[in-house]
């Protein structure tokens, strides 16, 4: 394998992983709060369309990116209402949202093509390290690639070391227990979905503003669902998600290099594509879903929230009285 081929695999792998990483981070936040958002593919599509459209209209990719984030948040608000406050079945609603987004963006694209030759983000070359043979390509990426890594570290830190992260993870581990302790699970979950969908919308915009040079119908081509799988592969850990997304990107890019190797040419290219999914199943099997948020996908009805919050208040009031009684005694 020549240096040029290795550079192509590595560079191509990173390019393919970035939209998946952004979307995966959003899904990870949502799933940590107990919401499984199968509508991720739809949110990515909408983010991609709006991002491309705004970038084209304004000739400004940064505005396109923020538009992707904004529309992602708007989708998140709709989905949060459905998932959290209406307590609908998350799988069915998510799938319906994706189908609706596919139809909507395809129709809109046919009426208003959103940029077929957009000038996307320019590559930022990190001086010095970018000249290292083969791995130097890692340091010749668009800013969205560097920011995605920073965002993954920030999400990892935020979920583990901040009060909001604690509330999010608590809502994902047990909504009833969390509500009993006085936390408004609905608010926490709604914020998580809106925040997560912002990341997902950004992932869609990143795809069209760095990779595809514009929107085309069904441009995401199941990348959202791949991000969903990568979150599981990463064990709901944002740092591990970087590795999972990289595995996906490299195995995806590698299939084309492998097709050039005559001794491996007979291996179906689909086999290389299946590596990340096989790895996901393998990891889930050996960990037996150890790190799965326990309340994942389980709606928490509004009535339960009210009862639990009242119960929590009563419990806290009794505790306070007991404590004051002990002090007085």
């Amino acid at each position: 394998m020549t240096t040029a081929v290795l550079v192509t695999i590595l560079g191509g792998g990173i390019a393919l992983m970035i939209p998946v990483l952004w979307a995966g981070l959003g899904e990870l936040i949502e799933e940590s709060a107990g919401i499984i958002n199968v509508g991720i593919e739809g949110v990515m599509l909408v983010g991609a369309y709006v991002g491309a459209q705004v970038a084209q209209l304004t000739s400004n990719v940064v505005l396109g990116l923020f538009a992707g984030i904004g529309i992602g948040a708007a989708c998140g608000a709709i989905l949060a209402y459905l998932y959290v406050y209406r307590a609908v079945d998350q799988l069915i609603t998510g799938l319906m949202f994706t189908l609706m987004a596919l139809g909507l963006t395809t129709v809109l694209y046919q009426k208003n093509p959103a940029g077929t030759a957009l000038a996307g983000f320019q590559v930022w070359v990190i001086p010095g390290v970018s000249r290292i043979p083969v791995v130097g390509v890692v340091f010749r990426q668009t800013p969205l690639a560097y920011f995605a890594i920073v965002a993954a570290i920030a999400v990892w830190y935020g979920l583990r070391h901040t009060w909001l992260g604690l509330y999010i993870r608590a809502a994902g581990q047990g909504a009833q227990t969390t509500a009993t302790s006085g936390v408004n699970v609905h608010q926490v979950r709604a914020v998580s979905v809106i925040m997560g969908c912002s990341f997902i919308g950004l992932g869609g915009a990143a795809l069209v503003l760095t990779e595809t040079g514009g929107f085309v119908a069904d441009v995401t081509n199941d990348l959202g669902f791949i991000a969903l799988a990568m979150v599981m592969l990463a064990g709901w850990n944002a740092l591990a998600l970087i590795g999972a997304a990289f595995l996906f990107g490299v195995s995806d890019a590698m299939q084309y290099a492998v097709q050039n190797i005559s001794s491996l040419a007979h291996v179906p290219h689909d086999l290389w594509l299946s590596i990340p999914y096989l790895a996901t199943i393998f990891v889930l099997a050996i960990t037996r879903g150890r790190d799965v948020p326990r309340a994942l996908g389980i709606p928490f009805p509004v009535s339960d929230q009210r009862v639990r919050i009242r119960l929590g208040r009563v419990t806290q009031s009794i505790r306070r009285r007991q404590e004051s009684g002990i002090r007085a005694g």
Partner: protein
Amino acid sequence: MSGKSHARSLSIVGALAVAAVLAACGGSSTTSGSTNTSIKVSKVAVLFAGVSNNRSFGNSVYDGANAAKQQLSSQGVTVTVVPNLNSPDDYLHQGTSFAKAGYGFELWMFGGAPDQLVAVAKQFPNVTFCELGVMVPPPWPKNVCTLSGEYYDGDFLAGMIGGTISKAHHIATVEGPAFPALTTEAEDFVLGARWVDPHIKVTQLSIPSYVDVAQGQAASNSAIAAGADVLFPAIDQATQGMLLAAQSHPGTYVIPQYYDSHSLAPNVVVTTVLLGIDGMTKSMINLGVKGQISNHDYHFKYAQAGVGKLAPYYNFSSLITPSLQARLSAAEAMLTQGTLTVPFIGTPGQGASYDLSQLPPLPAG
């Protein structure tokens, strides 16, 4: 059923309805006008893969269907054009729906649903069904036809150009999920290149989608990294990824297919193999409305209805040297006269191993 769960069910049904409406209105359009006695079939459905403005296969079908629609609207013919049907099941469902709705002729511009074609045709014996680029095993139902074209002649000519302009003596093809009508496009490009340069190196890559731009780009980058400097896509809108890859590697050329792609990437697109999909679509609709279709393969020869023609060279006229132009003109003449027959190669990889002695001698350049 409680009020809440009833409301939830209603919301799901509502979402399904919205999704169905959005999917259904993906560019469908109809026209109608006064009646004409020479018209035997007044309702025609054209179902096709891809969207109507993707500057690729779907765009070409749409242009042909739209031209027929405008021509026939004054004669009371309704032409309904339905894009974005990308799986065989879509054709089964939509084909059945249109037949039930009283459509007399359905043109499926897909190439991957022969079983569905026969199944629906048997169910609706009074409706005529035709599909592009499929091989239907006999016996054919009376109301089934296929259409094919020697559009791969254009791919062969493009291969001649690719084989001549490649400075690295290395060309590459990127193909979507294979089926014979698609495979022959890439294989005949390779064969055309080998005709002018028997020792040319060939890289052939497959991607799992016709529309995934990112995959098209990744595969093209891989081909460029392997040394290829002329790329040929047997993919649909994923071609855009190939154009992006070529643009980031100066000295790389692309010869796309279906729809003139010059405006998308004027600095890398040498020419486009137009294939004549629009002309074939229009011709078949015109035959269909007159009730003149019988159960056989409608085969369009080179240059009939624009089949296999190349788009202008625009910025790259200088690449087409007088010597190459002389060879191209001679090859075109041979195709028209029948002294050069480009083989239909439905098996991946066969273009690179095809016995060149079965082709006539290369014309002098």
